[in-house]
């Protein structure tokens, strides 16, 4: 018999943020909960002078990482393998400072790549991680940048892309939105507003613009109980003037955007669901990051089932092909629902962005959709809705200042 949480489940919402690693955002939580595979405080990377650069709790909301850390395939390869090349090399997560130095060109600035946040600086993400289910092993799908990683969240594959190309040649797997709509279900991508728009589904925006809505509509849909079966939310990607002349700050937490704005945005998404009791009791919210943004993490990414594609050396930029058989760097991921027992730490299981369409397809479509072998074999996460429904006094509400 399925857990009560799954029996009652009607909506799944995914919020995907930008470019921060697990250790950078949640590593400090290990100090108070040893089950969380975060930082001991003595992890290090060799600096440009060969001396170790240790992790430090000095991450701040802004004015750091002014040179956007490299998170493209070759840069991430350097970070994971420490500069080793060729067959037989062993991942060691020792190339982060080396990698960032190539951009910052300053040994002191290069150390920022090893900074992490104290929990007090991230009250929203910290509270959610401690109150609900935090994943010790959620990895970006590819050791590479945003677009191809987000593609895994939408299609379960990036169609052989390891970079920022969005036009998938020979696309033969439908997006999760297409699968849902064809099956008579509802699905929507809520981008922040038209000035920020969507980051990667330009194909979809061209041909099925009705799949898209603005974040203000998400808030309304939550209030009136009209949320679709599946929702994907994108934060604001730039600073711009909103309708009515208001100042809209980027909330995606991509360096060098203000991390606090991202905290605020995460709380707004959470509160929108939490504020409608009927919706709250029937919704699971996943907050996840697309990739590590070049920031340090200590966990070596594991191998994975290939998805049938291979990127050639000319595309990877590393003189080696890539068979999509190794995951990217670890990212923060938190599953939120009143049926998730307090303080759940998900360990011993490997998750990546293909788990998102896999979970949606399994739950709403009984697994009946064409998808890659990798997606079909990936984990699903709704079994974590395993407890009885938690009471209101046991569930946080965020009062966030402007």
């Amino acid at each position, binding site marked *: 018999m399925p857990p009560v949480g799954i029996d009652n489940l009607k909506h799944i919402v995914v919020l995907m943020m930008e470019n921060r690693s697990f250790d950078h955002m949640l590593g400090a939580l290990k100090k108070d909960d040893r089950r969380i595979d975060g930082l001991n405080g003595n992890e290090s990377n060799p600096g440009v002078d060969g001396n170790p650069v240790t992790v430090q709790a000095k991450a701040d909301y802004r004015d750091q990482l002014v040179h956007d850390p490299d998170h493209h395939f070759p840069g991430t390869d350097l970070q994971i393998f420490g500069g080793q090349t060729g067959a037989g090399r062993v991942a060691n997560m020792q190339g982060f400072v080396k990698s960032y130095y190539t951009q910052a060109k300053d040994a002191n600035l290069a150390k920022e790549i090893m900074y992490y946040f104290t929990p007090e600086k991230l009250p929203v993400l910290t509270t959610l991680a401690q109150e609900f289910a935090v994943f010790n092993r959620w990895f970006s799908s590819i050791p590479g940048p945003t677009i191809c990683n987000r593609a895994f969240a939408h299609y379960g594959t990036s169609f052989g892309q390891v970079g920022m190309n969005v036009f998938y040649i020979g696309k033969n797997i439908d997006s999760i939105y297409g699968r849902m709509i064809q099956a008579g279900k509802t699905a929507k991508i809520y981008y922040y507003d038209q000035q920020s*728009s969507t980051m990667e589904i330009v194909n979809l925006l061209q041909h099925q613009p009705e799949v898209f809505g603005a974040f203000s509509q998400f808030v309304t849909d939550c209030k009136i109980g009209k949320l679709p079966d599946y929702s994907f939310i994108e934060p604001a990607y730039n600073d711009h003037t909103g309708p009515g002349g208001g100042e809209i700050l980027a909330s995606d937490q991509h360096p060098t955007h203000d991390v*606090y704005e991202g905290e605020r945005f995460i709380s707004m998404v959470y509160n929108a669901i939490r504020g409608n009791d009927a919706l709250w009791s029937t919704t699971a919210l996943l907050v996840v990051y697309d990739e590590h943004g070049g920031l340090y993490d200590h966990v070596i990414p594991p191998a994975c089932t290939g998805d049938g594609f291979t990127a050639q050396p000319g595309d990877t930029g590393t003189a080696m092909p890539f068979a999509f058989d190794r995951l990217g760097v670890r990212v923060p991921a938190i599953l939120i629902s009143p049926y998730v027992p307090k303080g759940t730490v998900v360990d011993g299981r490997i998750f990546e962005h293909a788990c998102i369409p896999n979970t949606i397809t399994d739950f709403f479509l009984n697994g009946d959709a064409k998808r890659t072998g990798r997606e079909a074999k990936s984990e699903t996460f709704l079994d974590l809705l395993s407890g009885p429904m938690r009471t209101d006094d046991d569930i946080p*509400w965020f009062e966030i200042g402007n």
Partner: protein
Amino acid sequence: MAKHVYVVKVQRPHAKRFEPDRPITDLVRNQLMHLSLAQRQLDKKHHHPADVYSIKTDAQAAEFIRHVTAKLHSLKGKAAKPTRKAKPPKAKPRKSKSTTKSSRFMQKGKGRS
């Protein structure tokens, strides 16, 4: 809605710093390129006047992104670039072929990488 018991207060730790003149990130630059390619499928009269390569700041990017996104929404693939101004005469496979090619492009999402 019931009053919440377990409240987490999150005070803004610093003044807002609105930076619309901030240089765009690589991510936004890529987004501009993608939207620029999508825009090419629309009739020129729907294009944003800016050269996408001249866009340097968040504010400039936001305006371009807004324009193209709004057009893609409102036109819903209907305003494909025409191959001729006049309505083509019937039973001319050449004209049908070019229309079909752009339709095929639109439907399968193929484009230049």
